[in-house]
């Protein structure tokens, strides 16, 4: 799953369907690469990707914890993007 120098990126629910993508492995180009930089890189994969990355209601999690700031990423990290939750 977590290759050396890569992060695993996961999508859920509406975003997973929109991108037709459950998960993608992304190489970290440099040390201290931040979450916002990953999002910019993902947005460059195409129009739908750019749309998802600019969603107002995009929840971001790093290593299964929701983040509201812009943490640096480390090889092996798991990043996830999903809409507001609707369980229960």
């Amino acid at each position, binding site marked *: 799953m977590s290759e050396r120098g890569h992060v695993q990126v*996961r999508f*859920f*629910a*509406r975003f*997973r369907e929109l991108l037709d993508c459950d998960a993608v492995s992304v190489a970290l180009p440099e040390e201290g690469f931040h979450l916002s930089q990953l999002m910019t890189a993902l947005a460059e994969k195409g129009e739908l990707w750019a749309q998802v990355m600019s969603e107002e209601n995009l929840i971001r*999690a790093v290593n*299964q*914890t*929701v983040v509201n700031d812009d943490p640096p990423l480390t090889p092996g990290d798991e990043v*996830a993007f*999903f*809409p*507001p*939750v*609707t*369980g*229960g």
Partner: protein
Amino acid sequence: MADLDVVIQTAAFDPGELQQQLIGQSTDIGGVVTFTGYVRNANEGDEVSVLQLEHYPGMTERVIQETLENAAQRWPLLAAQVVHRVGELVPGDPIVWVGISAKHRAAAYAACEFAMDFLKTEAPFWKKERTADGERWLDQRSVDTERTARW
């Protein structure tokens, strides 16, 4: 320390059996409060035929476990369990069960409501409804975020 448990499963569950498991052989318990959520047959006027529940395995269990740990720090609990189904459900199916046991009822009521409020707003589950008009992902209800903000 309270006995805390989280189960995510595709299989159906029986609220009565879960309550029996929660109390076990204990004779310390003064009260048990349970919440069972069911799939409703109608949402915003449309007849629901199937509800599809997706989740984020691993994160789901972690978030709910943390919620129960927070509850056990705030109130004196004996045991707490959450069972949540994923996959395909139909109207009338139980979808989530929260059971809390405590020596006194006030703690059990508060912890059960607290757990459901955080589950609704923090646990990574997503519901997709199938109606006669097709499929749609549900939006978060603002009343749920307001309820969580109370604590």
